[in-house]
């Protein structure tokens, strides 16, 4: 009995220690975003919202935030539509070399973002495409398409195949089956793929850094802020980004998993 109590104590201590490790940087980040002083390091001089004010007054940061949202939502939508169609085609029909096709669609997932970015950069340079938010978006679709395809493909079971057959049997054309039956039926996984893609794109640095020029996304803008060293304003931006991401996560949890749980 004593040994079980010790192991329980050890377990809880370990849990607390690791939670401490996991939350330490975030806690420090958020705490010193309220720092009333020039440096976001101890000692804590008292709370102020000044840095948040500066963040929202910074037009470069705000436009970067807008760019990020635009690229994230745009690239996630394209990746979802392409991924859904591909999953539908490969799960519902017998196609030659379907294993190869699936492998090709998944392949970008196993390659470092840096390499994808470099490949696109050399190619765009070679054919003379100038860098912009569009090229960033293209890169983000490349990394999110495998994710969307894999998530949606995995959720397409045989039972749903029969349901789609029934719809076709009742006179639905292929596009009607897709829009009125398959898509609503698979909505939880489509939404999951979409939100995950949005957060990945929203957070992505290296592709956005290498493939953008004048208009940049938020991570790239934050990166250039880092050059000026430690600054409570950076803490404030980081805290805002964190809150937005957690809000997205909660949205996903509420919309998608609530729905799935109901069924």
């Amino acid at each position, binding site marked *: 009995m004593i040994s079980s109590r010790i192991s329980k104590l050890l377990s809880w201590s370990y849990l607390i220690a690791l939670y401490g490790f996991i939350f330490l940087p975030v806690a420090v980040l958020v705490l010193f975003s309220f720092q009333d002083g020039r440096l976001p390091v101890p000692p804590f001089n008292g709370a102020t919202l000044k840095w948040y004010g500066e963040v929202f007054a910074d037009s470069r940061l705000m436009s970067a935030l807008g760019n990020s949202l635009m690229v994230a939502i745009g690239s996630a939508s394209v990746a979802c539509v392409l991924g859904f169609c591909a999953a539908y085609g490969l799960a519902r029909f017998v196609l030659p070399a379907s294993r190869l096709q699936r492998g090709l669609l998944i392949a970008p997932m196993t390659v470092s973002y840096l390499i994808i970015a470099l490949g696109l950069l050399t190619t765009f340079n070679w054919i003379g495409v100038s860098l912009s938010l569009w090229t960033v978006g293209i890169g983000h679709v490349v990394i999110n398409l495998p994710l969307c395809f894999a998530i949606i493909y995995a959720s397409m079971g045989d*039972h749903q195949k029969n349901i789609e*057959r*029934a*719809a*076709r049997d009742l006179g*639905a*054309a292929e596009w009607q089956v897709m829009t009125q039956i398959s898509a*609503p*039926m698979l909505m939880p996984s489509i939404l999951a793929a979409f939100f995950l893609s949005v957060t990945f794109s929203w957070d992505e640095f290296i592709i956005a850094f290498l493939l953008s020029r004048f208009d940049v996304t938020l991570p790239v803008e934050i990166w250039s802020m880092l050059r000026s060293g430690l600054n409570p304003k950076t803490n404030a931006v980081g805290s805002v980004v964190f809150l937005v991401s957690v809000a997205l996560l909660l949205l996903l949890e509420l919309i998608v998993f609530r729905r799935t749980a109901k069924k």
Partner: protein
Amino acid sequence: MTAPVSIRNATKTFGAFTALDDVSLEISAGEFIVLLGPSGCGKTTLLSLLGGFLSPTSGSIEIAGRNMADVAPAKRPTTTMFQDYALFPHMTLRDNVAFGLKMRKVAKAKRHAKAEELLDMVGLKTSAHKKPHELSGGQRQRVALARALAVEPDVLLLDEPLGALDLKLRRQMQDELKAIQKRVGTTFVHVTHDQEEAMAIADRIVVMNAGKIEDVGSPENIYMQPKSLFSASFMGEVNFIPGTLEAKSDTALTIKTALGTVDIPPSDDAPFKQGTSVTLAIRPEHFRASTGAGPRITLGKAKVEDGSFFGTHHRAHLSPLDYPNMTITAHMPQSAVIEPGAWVELTLDPTTVVVLPDHPANTPVGSTV
């Protein structure tokens, strides 16, 4: 709406496997046809050919006199009721039933009225606003039926629709299905592996095995006068007793078996030659007491090995005196007293005995199937 179906020499192969082997069948308008057979016998393949989910490798299918080659499932005058019901999980029952009409561009008010009418027919009028996951298995099955009938198909294809239900509910749904079919008059083609279900609902049963049709006829016909060993054994319990045709006259076939020689009245189409191997097929309930009216034949005495009570009858295993290795299954009356070791007389009405060509392959002599 209703229409006849005509299947001519339909064959379907998947690679080296022949799922359907030169099958021909005429179905009249308004008929309730049951395709009966074990899994892998080709019954579901035949249904898929009718529904248009598969194309025949050779042969043709006509519905209402129209060739169905190149007609997509959506354009055929058929609808299918799937085994797992395949209800649209994100739609209410009303939207489920009205879906086919929506695809046919029927106005909203009209299709909703029709959907409610059909839901009323299957007893679910008050649940029109519910979603499929709120229903029980039997209710889902009814919605699937209403949905398939809403577009007024000429032919309704039912793919083991009762397979997922428990026994009691299944019996109840059989009666409902039959009643609804009589009411709407649509041609029903129903696939099952359950012979009791087939007998309960079919106008005609099509017994299938290994991609071929073994037997076609009314339930009574198939049960009482099966045309093949497979058909006889698939439609309930039967005793097979191998024998040889000794003599043949207008009034009797004289057959020699290990249990003695018996005279059986010839059936209409019995092209047996003298000296050929034949099999006597005897249903367990046809062994009767030796006294009573009508003609009687006997297969000698048999010893009771064991027995169990089934409510309507006792089911007993007997070993004949003349050939103790053989086991005969017989149904004794409810009132009978079954004592292991007792001796009984194997007495039969000769008109109930069916003479079939050949011996059962891979079956030990005289075994019960």
